[in-house]
């Protein structure tokens, strides 16, 4: 069974890389969006899923990445070279938020992150260098969709690989200990504060990289697009839907989420219904299978055994 799993993972990584050979631009655009969703969901899962610290403030990191890239590109810097700076700024910001916020536990931490993200959005809308509420446009002549596509896909693969590595590493086990019983984790020597800060910074940097790529491909950003609270909400929804704290869960969640998003946006009548649908999905998952799709799959283990035997 192990090799089947390895083959499937390899296929999942290779398929989007060779997709431009046989898919049209519209489909590739959808795949680009899926890759973005996978990055956001998997990166969030490092802190929210592995360490159990549910943050509703991740739009801040996407926004920091997007604005860093856009503002520096307007100054004439090659857009792709701005990505590392965005990542560093987002990681630094995550630590500044984390130092006070990680003193809070459970829902209090979550509420604090909402506050921070909203404060960032309001600030970004009211200062002039972000273009205010009307946003900013990338300088012309810097657009190459193929490059944008491959960058996003490769980043997605790298983020998922990092998540898989973290999960099986001592660092990942420390995060799991924090999630399951933070006092007991401290009691065996885990510096919970430092672990949470590290996971936060790592995921913030990944999300900021995606934010930079988002700005490069979208060519236009505004506080209402990249600092939107609904974005933070969707980032949380995907891993919960797929399976919190697993490697594949955020990918499955992203797959469902992007498909829904793309389908819904194409039907004018349902355009604005997506929050309603996500809210409903969230309630169903929380009530019936808190481990998401991965949990359903595990429940079906006895059924699979019957099929394998026959």
């Amino acid at each position, binding site marked *: 069974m192990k090799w089947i799993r390895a083959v499937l993972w390899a296929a999942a990584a290779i398929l989007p890389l060779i997709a431009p050979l046989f898919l049209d631009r519209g489909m590739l655009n959808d795949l680009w969006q899926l890759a973005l969703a996978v990055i956001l969901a998997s990166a969030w899962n490092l802190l929210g899923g592995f360490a159990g610290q549910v943050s509703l403030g991740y739009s801040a990191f996407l926004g920091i990445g997007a604005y860093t890239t856009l503002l520096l590109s307007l100054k004439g810097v090659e857009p792709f070279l701005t990505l590392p700076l965005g990542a560093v700024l987002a990681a630094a910001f995550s630590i500044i938020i984390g130092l006070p916020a990680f003193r809070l536990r459970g829902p209090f931490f979550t509420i604090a992150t909402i506050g921070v993200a909203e404060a960032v959005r309001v600030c970004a809308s009211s200062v002039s260098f972000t273009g205010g509420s009307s946003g900013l446009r990338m300088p012309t002549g810097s657009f190459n969709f193929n490059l944008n596509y491959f960058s996003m896909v490769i980043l997605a693969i790298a983020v998922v690989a990092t998540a898989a590595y973290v999960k099986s590493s*001592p660092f990942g086990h420390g995060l*799991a*200990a924090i999630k399951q*019983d933070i006092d*007991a984790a401290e*009691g065996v020597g*885990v510096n919970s504060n430092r672990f949470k800060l590290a996971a936060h910074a790592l995921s913030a940097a990944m999300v900021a990289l995606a934010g930079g790529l988002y700005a490069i491909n979208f060519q236009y950003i505004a506080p209402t697009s990249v600092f939107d609270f609904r974005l933070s909400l969707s980032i949380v929804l995907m891993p919960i839907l797929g399976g919190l704290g697993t490697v594949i869960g955020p990918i499955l969640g992203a797959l469902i989420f992007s498909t829904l998003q793309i389908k819904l946006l194409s039907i004018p009548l349902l355009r604005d219904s997506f929050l309603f649908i996500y809210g409903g999905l969230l309630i169903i998952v929380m009530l019936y299978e808190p481990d998401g799709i991965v949990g359903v799959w595990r429940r079906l283990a006895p059924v699979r055994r019957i099929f394998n035997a026959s």
Partner: protein
Amino acid sequence: MPPEAILSARAISKRFGGLLALASVDFDVMRGDIFGIIGPNGAGKTTLFSCIAGALSPTSGEIFFRGERMNGLPNHTVVKRGMVRTHQIVRPFRQMTVAENISVAAHFGAGRRRGADADRSVRDILERTALAPDASALAGALTIGQLKRLEIARAMATEPQVICLDEVMGGLNPAEIVGAMALIRSIRDSGITVLMIEHHVHAVAGLSNRIMVLNFGQKIAEGPPQQVMNDPAVITAYLGAD
């Protein structure tokens, strides 16, 4: 403080609002001791452990571990310096296997083991605590006897110099108590100093070379088991005055 003391408390007090849970308690634990702490319910025993291990900060007084002042240090720092406690109400990582529970402690405790070195340490402790057959069972699925052993195993895996055991025999059957006593002796024989809170007076008297008795947050007796058990103040605390 005597030079051979590994752990010393000087006038430790802990106040919770109007309740004085610990009132100026002094004691010294020597390297290689099994130091028993007994007392009626609510005497302040667990509060004392929390103050020593760093989960609580004493209201006043000082704690010295290997000559260093430990007051107010966070729990994880105390563990990394070589002192660990178990919890009376067990706190396993329920969604991890028994081996993973121990492995986390081996990685981040005072030993800071990595890779194959950590695996070896985990295997060794699984054997010593008789948990090897359950190594890949989820901690959430264990019996209370196994959970108590896992609690000790995880503390051992941090490679402490002092281990504080909080009622590790509570809820065990007589056969399991015999096993637990043997395990505690083997821990001491491997060079670890043991502090233990215990309600099984016979077990604690049989194991300890010194016993301290707390009542209403105050130390009412300390000394070798025989002497303490015959102390009129201790008998009164346990049985009430006539």
